[in-house]
């Protein structure tokens, strides 16, 4: 069987300089990165693309990630800086959409949106206090193993054998009479 996995240390010999994101990025400053993306949005071709995406009701977050991924893939900025500037870029796209009178969806949770959680729902319905009152630990009855009589595997009441019967069943009565450990040696007739 042929082993197709790389040999240990192969990564140290691989030439990865052709990938843009493996080289130092061109932009590392926050304001410079925002300026770069805003300039790209203001570019006539990119502006048309952004407006077209807004026309097809694409979310602003999707448009922003597309623009940022382009910048990251060309090595303009590192990916963490791209994530940081996503907010300002989205805000700029939002302002553009408002200015042009286009309907838009930010694609994020509304800041005034109330998240309905089970606790919030209980508080709204007023069942939290009732639950606390009814939270009584039900004590389980202590059942000794000797008194277990019911059930499929339980011992029936009427069939409890006496100690003598139990000795007899276990062979205790025969121990004194015919002890298997004490065997009589056959008499040597020879």
């Amino acid at each position, binding site marked *: 069987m042929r082993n197709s996995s790389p040999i240990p240390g192969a990564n140290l010999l691989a030439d990865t300089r052709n990938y843009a994101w493996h080289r130092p990025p061109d932009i590392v400053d*926050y*304001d410079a990165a925002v300026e770069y993306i805003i300039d790209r949005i203001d570019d006539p071709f990119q502006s048309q693309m952004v407006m077209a995406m807004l026309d097809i009701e694409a979310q602003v*977050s999707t448009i922003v990630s597309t623009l940022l991924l382009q910048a990251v893939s060309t090595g303009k900025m590192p990916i963490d800086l791209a*994530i*940081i500037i*996503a*907010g*300002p870029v*989205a805000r700029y796209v939002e302002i553009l959409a408002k200015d042009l009178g286009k309907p838009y969806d930010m694609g*994020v949770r509304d800041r005034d949106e109330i998240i309905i959680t089970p606790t919030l729902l209980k508080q709204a319905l007023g069942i939290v206090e009732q639950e606390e009152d009814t939270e009584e630990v039900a004590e389980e009855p202590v059942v000794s193993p000797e008194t277990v009589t019911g059930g499929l595997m339980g011992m029936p009441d009427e069939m409890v054998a006496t100690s003598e019967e139990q000795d007899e069943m276990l062979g205790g009565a025969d121990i004194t009479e015919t002890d298997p450990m004490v065997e009589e040696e056959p008499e040597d007739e020879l």
Partner: protein
Amino acid sequence: MQFQDAVKLSIEKFLQGKMPNKLAEVAEGGALYHTPEYFDQLEEELLGEPVEKDKGDKDEK
């Protein structure tokens, strides 16, 4: 977390007026220009009041 999820989270935080605490310290000049207040002002100028020529050129950038 996927890139798209991180972008959404970043947008959400920025719309709430939050920014990374240490960002201003590493910024050139020690101060940030593109803050939530800046974009609020930009929106007000573009959509509400007439934009001055000098400032408008810079804001449209």
